[in-house]
């Protein structure tokens, strides 16, 4: 009886973590469409992708129970935490070396608040 209730609680916790992981992976997909620049997309992927992957690994580890699969999952999670952030940093550094500019540094065509026209408009 006690074992069955523990199994039920573990399954419900695993389902909650699976839903959290699905939410963050969908946030990554929406952000790839909505964000304006390559550097801001890098900032998105290095955070949300790691968090979604880690919650899904945690859900799988809770579902598996104590076995050797948990050891493998801990190894995969450790590698994901290191490699995802490092590869994002490397891509961002290559963008910097190639002279890719942030979207805020580009001069606007016309300032909508002041109502005056820029020199580039005329």
């Amino acid at each position, binding site marked *: 009886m006690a074992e069955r209730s523990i199994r039920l609680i573990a*399954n419900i916790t*695993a*389902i909650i973590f*699976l839903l959290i*992981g*699905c939410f963050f*992976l*969908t946030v*990554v*997909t929406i952000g*790839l*469409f909505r964000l304006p620049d*390559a550097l801001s*997309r*890098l900032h998105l*992927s290095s955070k949300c*992708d790691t968090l*979604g*992957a880690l919650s*899904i*690994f945690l859900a*799988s580890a809770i*579902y*598996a129970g104590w076995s*050797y*699969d948990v050891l*493998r*999952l801990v*190894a*995969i999670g450790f*590698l*994901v935490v290191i*490699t*995802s952030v*490092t*590869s*994002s940093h*490397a*891509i961002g*550094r*290559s*963008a910097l*070396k*190639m*002279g*890719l500019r942030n979207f805020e540094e580009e001069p606007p065509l016309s300032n909508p608040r002041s109502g005056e026209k820029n020199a580039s408009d005329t």
Partner: protein
Amino acid sequence: MNIFLTGTAIIVILNAFVCLYRVIKGPTIQDRVLTINIVGSKTLIILVLMAFIFKSSIYLDVAILLVLLNFIVMIVVSRYLETYGREVNQIDR
């Protein structure tokens, strides 16, 4: 419980296919490389879920190799773009 794992895997696969839009239409080459990184990470998640759907832990060993392969690809491509990036960008435009 099995149906929840399968549903999560299907949602992740759909997300990966929608992400491929940015590979086709990325304005810079960093967008394409970054999206390939994201699709590789989702492939890793699908492999981990498959290990528990089909109840065979050989997929987890494949997943460890996939993490390292994805990392090596990203490091090599970004180091290439650091040295030869300006020529590649001129060809791309």
